[in-house]
């Protein structure tokens, strides 16, 4: 296993510029993990949605560290701004308070250890797979860039067919959501 380190200084000190960037990255990852823990473990669904928003805010920071500020902005806009709010409205329109409390039904006794072990198994398996694989780095051409301009050009030339298809999917989702939510209203 060789770590793929591209940094000019492989071991930055704590108070250099790279060190502060590293601290910010660690805080971002901590935000992701904290949000995921809150979203998965809390009994109240409103808190779970708050955890989802926190986790996706941290994930936007992770995308920023992966050299894509456009995707970070899209993550904030779509997930934090739209999907979380949509789920929050769904909760407000459908659940009475404290719907997900444990103990009053009979399957929940087995579900906790089973879910914990299966999730830990997936995490361990994928982690070992990612850490032990010899990843092959493909050489990147000199003029290759990943900024917004390049993304826009590729989206409208190479991937224009998928772009049109995804717009059709979104249109169908809008119409389908309207039809489904309207059915049964008297």
């Amino acid at each position, binding site marked *: 296993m060789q770590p793929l380190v591209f940094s000019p200084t492989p071991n930055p000190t704590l108070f250099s510029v790279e060190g502060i960037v*590293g601290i910010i990255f660690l805080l971002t990852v901590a935000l992701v993990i904290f949000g995921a823990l809150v*979203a998965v473990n809390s009994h109240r669904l409103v808190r779970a949605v708050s955890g989802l928003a926190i986790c996706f805010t941290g994930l936007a920071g992770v995308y920023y560290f992966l050299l894509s500020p456009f995707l970070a902005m899209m993550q904030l806009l779509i997930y934090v701004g739209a999907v979380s709010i949509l*789920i929050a409205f769904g909760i407000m329109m*459908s659940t009475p308070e404290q719907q997900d409390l444990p103990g009053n*039904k009979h399957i929940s006794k087995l579900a906790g250890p089973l879910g*914990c072990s299966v999730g830990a198994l997936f995490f361990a398996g994928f982690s070992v797979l990612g850490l032990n694989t010899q990843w092959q780095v493909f050489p990147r051409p000199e003029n290759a860039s990943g900024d917004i301009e390049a993304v826009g050009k590729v*989206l409208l030339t190479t991937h224009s067919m998928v772009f049109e298809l995804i717009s059709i999917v979104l249109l169908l*989702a809008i119409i389908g959501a309207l039809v489904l939510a309207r059915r049964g209203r008297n």
Partner: protein
Amino acid sequence: MVLLNLYNCLQTYLVLGALLFGFGVYGLIVRRTIIGMLISSEFILAAASTNFMAFNRFLAPDPTIGQIFTLFIMAIAAAEASIAISIVIAVYRNYKSIDVEDLGDLQG
């Protein structure tokens, strides 16, 4: 400190993606309401997005292709969330509950 240089390392992002996937699977099994399961499935999609972005940053010859994939995943996730929420509202209108155990009879 090696710990401060983690953001330049592919394996960090892969482990983070695996962690999100594990949380998603755990939530899918443990949650008993439809909305809780929907939230957990968002984590699985986020794990896939994180992996695509990491491979895009470190390995791929074209630095835009992973971002395109992640954009499409976001669009699909938005469509999926809207459909699922409308299904939840329709189900709640019929059953007065979104607990998956109360939704046993599907024949109408």
